[in-house]
């Protein structure tokens, strides 16, 4: 579990670091945007060119060092033990690595902006160009290409529901409530979300790089085609993973297999992004010769990353560093997004504190005043003894085939709603390191699998129930 979590984090951060490297160009003359600054023809003037080369090379070198350093640290973090500690260290590391990797970009951006000022170049504030022949006409995303994988995914969801409801019988599979179906439905919704993003990106404004409308049309079509391919790939990967996941749950693949499939899923997604960024940069390089109009709106880009333009009514604009779009922070919705982002970061750290508390607090099982109490941080479950229909003592968790629907699943704690022995909606309160458990069935039919801090505590409570 720990290694799997570490591996997932490792793939995510390594992919982001590799993608960011594309934005530290060595051959800056081929690029349209250099460290968040639009390339101007004046950059090729003697004296200026050398200074830009120096700034760009320095940033590139620093970024490579930071990427290598972060990668080595990430490898070391794979061997961390303890879920709460792992979560805390990985989260802090990811934030630190992202900030560190952006530093050369921000510093380089600042130097380039200062150089622009020094040579008397200023942004054409408030000026924008529109190709009236192409406005709203350049699209590359074919609705059928995103519709098909979404329909296939929906079919998988329907099959999952039918299997879980027992309408379709699968030999060896006991219908475990709607667990597999809900998981498939979640992935289908992810696919729908990707589809929405795909259409938003496909409707982005077409950039004007030339006075020739055909050049503009071809350039924007090539860029949007690359973007559309990425999103279609994402939706197909999502659909295939939904099928694999559903099959895994029905056929009864091991947890390890499901974990491996998630890792492959992430690797494919990240691989897709890397290929997209490569081709996106290549298209820009190919159209360098045709570029004669540069819409210099650098002053609206804070640090070359955050777009803040109160005069622009658009909410989304294309990112300067990274994949996809970013919000206009001056837009009312953009302001809400930034507040939500800050809350998310605070929430992440609060969650880590909570995880730490949950992991550090041992569970306790007791029988007090005629009630079986499962306590950790608070009374999780209170079962009146008078409500108990039957109680069984067991010493091996493996045959239960516990599968979490909601709640906590750690190396030292299983708490919440699980499916067990083919029954969905079971309440679980166990330390899986301690194999002893009591299966309690109440008169209302609710099933509990509970255990104490150790086998002795579990046995002691069971004896009081006998």
């Amino acid at each position, binding site marked *: 579990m720990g290694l799997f979590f570490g591996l997932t984090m490792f793939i995510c951060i390594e992919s982001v670091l590799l993608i960011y490297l594309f934005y530290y160009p060595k051959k800056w003359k081929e690029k349209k945007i250099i460290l968040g600054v639009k390339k101007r023809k004046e950059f090729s003037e003697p004296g200026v060119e050398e200074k830009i080369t120096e700034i760009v090379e320095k940033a590139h070198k620093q970024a490579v060092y930071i990427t290598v350093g972060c990668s080595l640290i990430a490898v070391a973090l794979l061997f961390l033990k303890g879920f709460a500690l792992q979560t805390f260290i990985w989260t802090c590391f990811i934030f630190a690595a992202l900030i560190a990797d952006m530093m050369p970009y921000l510093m380089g951006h600042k130097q380039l902006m200062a150089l622009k000022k020094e040579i008397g170049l200023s942004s054409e504030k*408030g*000026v924008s160009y529109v190709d009236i*022949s192409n406005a709203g006409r350049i699209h590359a995303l074919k609705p059928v290409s995103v519709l098909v994988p979404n329909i296939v995914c929906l079919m998988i969801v329907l099959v999952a529901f039918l299997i879980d409801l027992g309408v379709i019988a699968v030999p060896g599979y006991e219908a475990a409530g709607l667990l597999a179906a809900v998981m498939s439905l979640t992935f289908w919704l992810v696919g729908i979300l990707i589809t929405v993003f795909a259409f938003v990106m496909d409707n982005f404004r077409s950039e004007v790089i030339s006075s020739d409308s055909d050049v503009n049309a071809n350039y924007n079509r090539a860029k949007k085609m690359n973007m559309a391919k990425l999103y279609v790939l994402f939706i197909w990967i999502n659909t295939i993973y939904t099928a694999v996941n559903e099959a895994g749950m029905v056929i009864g693949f091991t947890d390890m297999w499901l974990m491996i499939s998630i890792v492959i899923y992430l690797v494919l997604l990240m691989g897709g992004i890397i290929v997209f960024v490569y081709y996106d940069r290549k298209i820009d390089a190919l159209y360098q010769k045709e570029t004669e109009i540069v819409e210099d709106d650098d002053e609206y880009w804070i640090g070359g990353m955050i777009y803040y333009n109160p*005069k*622009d*009514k*658009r909410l989304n604009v294309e990112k300067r560093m990274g994949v996809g779009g970013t919000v206009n922070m001056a837009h009312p919705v953009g302001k809400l997004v930034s507040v939500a982002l800050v809350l998310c970061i605070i929430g992440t750290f609060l969650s880590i504190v909570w995880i730490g508390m949950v992991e550090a607090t041992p569970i306790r099982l007791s029988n007090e005043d005629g009630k079986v109490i499962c306590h950790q941080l608070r009374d999780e479950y209170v079962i009146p003894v008078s409500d108990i229909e039957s109680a069984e003592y067991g010493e091996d968790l493996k045959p239960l085939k516990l599968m979490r629907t909601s709640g906590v699943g750690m190396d030292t704690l299983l708490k919440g709603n699980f499916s067990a022995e083919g029954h969905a909606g079971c309440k679980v309160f166990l330390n899986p390191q301690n194999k002893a458990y009591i299966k309690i069935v109440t008169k209302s039919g609710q099933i509990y699998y509970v255990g104490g801090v150790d086998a002795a505590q579990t046995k002691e409570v069971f004896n009081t129930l006998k």
Partner: protein
Amino acid sequence: MIIRIDELSDVPIYQQIRNQIVMGISDGTLAAGEQLPTVRALALEMGINTMTVSKAYQQLKMEGYIMTDRKNGARVRSNIEKQGNMSEGNKTELKRIVSEARLSGVPKQEIIKLVEKFYGGK
């Protein structure tokens, strides 16, 4: 055809759109019958309010440069009415431009050459 919008200019944005479309029709960049983008598409591309684009289109329609209908959107008129005379407003504007050029020392021939170039189209 490329339209350049300057949000900080004294000329209102709808007027800038209108002026540049008129220039496009005049020099042949926008052909007769050519489809113009929808109000929404143009507003989205420019990052401006749809009302601004709508106002520009309304003016162009009123002046007889474009025609609009619900089915086909906006198109450049193929039979623009040729009145054969300049409006008083345009005469005043031309006078201002010529006066400024004269005061800046631009030779008369240069102004005539420019007029010929612009009048001649592409």
